[in-house]
């Protein structure tokens, strides 16, 4: 009979995907243990509570509209004390990392980071956390109140949008000493994207015949809301700027998905993208070394594959 609390995240009035993914997980765990799952929202997000369809109860705390590490941590701390949930799910994200560590320490709760899977087993919970850059998974079991930090992409956000009664309840909570004040949000300059930060990259290599073929790739990237990067020959040919070059003499990228189109995969290029979590390679040469590092591969012409993708997407 586990009661799971999800600490949601938002920016500029929209819930981040991680909130729905955690809610989906919580819903599943609550279902498996016959318990309940509740979602904590902050400030103005109260008005969007209905989106959190999977939650049985949405707890709305009065807070500043934008994330504030000190204020939000204080709120989470008092809600946990107030509601004493069995498990608290917090995002393994830029926001979650502040809250989980501070609240876990003040309430002396164990914290389990980088989790991409949680199962109920009796009254305890089994969590799998991805450590050592994804080289090893640590399986742990916790049978007391604990905080679990959930990796983005661990569940399908859709599962967090339905299945609960989503009643609303206001909670009062302390807001911290005010030593940290939110100032403003800063949008990245539109002109050039820092591909080392991109989550999804569509990367092109020598397989692209000419400069004007790149347009079709840019359209694909647009629809996947990905950024475009390339290998050295493309930069040398002057078709893309140096800031888009992946590889030894370019940049090192760590995207979630790296779609390599027409890249043979020379060691110098692999060095720049080997830490991508999922690598998909499209190349006409079945022996291309890129296939040794890729998780998925297609032997074929990158333009045919791109066209197929675009037709499917429209």
């Amino acid at each position, binding site marked *: 009979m586990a009661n799971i609390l999800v600490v949601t995240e938002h*920016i500029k009035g929209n819930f981040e995907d991680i909130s729905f993914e955690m809610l989906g997980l919580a819903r599943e765990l609550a279902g498996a243990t016959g318990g309940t799952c509740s979602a904590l929202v902050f400030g103005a997000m109260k008005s969007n509570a209905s989106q959190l369809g999977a939650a049985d109860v949405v707890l709305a705390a009065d807070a500043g509209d934008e*994330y504030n*590490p000190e204020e939000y941590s204080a709120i989470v701390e008092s809600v946990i004390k107030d509601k004493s949930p069995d498990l608290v799910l917090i995002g393994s*994200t*830029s926001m979650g*990392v*502040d809250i*989980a*560590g*501070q609240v876990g*320490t*003040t309430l002396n709760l*164990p*914290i*389990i*980071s980088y989790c991409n899977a949680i199962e109920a087993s009796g009254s305890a919970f089994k969590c799998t*956390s991805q*450590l*050592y*850059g*994804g080289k*090893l*998974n*640590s*399986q*742990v079991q*916790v049978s007391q109140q*604990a905080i679990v930090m959930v990796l983005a*992409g661990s569940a399908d*956000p859709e599962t967090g949008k339905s299945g609960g009664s989503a009643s609303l309840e206001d909670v009062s909570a302390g807001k911290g000493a005010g*030593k*940290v*004040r*939110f*100032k*403003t*949000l*800063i*949008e*990245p300059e539109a002109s050039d994207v*820092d591909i080392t*930060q991109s989550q*999804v990259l569509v990367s092109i290599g020598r397989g692209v015949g000419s400069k004007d073929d790149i347009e079709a790739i840019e359209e694909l990237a647009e629809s*996947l809301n990905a950024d475009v990067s390339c290998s050295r020959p493309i930069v040398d040919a002057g078709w893309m700027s140096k800031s888009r070059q992946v590889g030894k003499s370019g940049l090192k990228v760590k995207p979630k*998905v790296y779609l390599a189109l027409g890249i043979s995969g020379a060691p110098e290029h692999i060095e720049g993208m080997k830490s991508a979590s999922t690598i*998909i*390679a*499209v190349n006409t040469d079945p022996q291309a070394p890129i*296939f040794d590092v*890729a998780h*998925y*591969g297609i032997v074929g012409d990158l333009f*045919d*594959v791109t*066209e*197929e*993708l675009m*037709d*499917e*997407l429209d």
Partner: protein
Amino acid sequence: MKILVLLRQVPDLVEDLEVDDSGKALDVSEIKFKLNEYDEHALEEAILLKERGEADEVVALTQEGEGSEKVLYTALAKGATLAKSIAISGEASDSAQFAKLMAEAAKAEGGDMIMVGVQSVDDRDGQLAPIVAASLDMPCISAVTGVKVSGNTASIFKEYSGGIMAEFEADLPAVIGIQAAEQPPRYAPVSKIKQIQDSAEIGSLSASSSNGASSIEVLALAPPPKGEGAKMLDSGKDLLDVLKDLGVA
């Protein structure tokens, strides 16, 4: 304005990592340790603040042990003003306990700002910055890519995914979890490190671990289930399904 920088040595992922016989922990004998990449960025950011005149002292701290001297002399060669190694009595069984020990040492040393790497490859039981902050009752902001100090407040730039940044203003003292310094960490030439080794001294601090074993049970440590090379797909349509699973399309 005195900045403490906590430096950790973590397993080097370039080596193949093996699990020990218990199947629950790393086989430490085989690994090579190196300075945590994010802590290196934290040190760089601290030195940049000193070079900009926003800080007068940068004190590098690390747990005493094999390789700790090299870490500290390298930090001094890069521009740290002081370096101390922390002798920890007893074993820190997980990253949370380790963080509390580091907090204890930081408290003894005292400082207006504590800078650490936002995470490490093995901090499964909670990240250093927030735990140290909570232990010392200081505010904490992580995933930071820029810091400006004026008087006893600092404006801090936190990065969210997709390149959006948030600017905060925090009263000092505070703990900051650095994701990336404003420039790539500088290289400390060996000849400079050698000069420093002859001239500089390494101080020492101590910390003793108080509460016992951690409250979670480790079941196993194992490599994730791995497919054999690339899983070959036939068409763009299969590719689209894969992209969908990955939450991209």
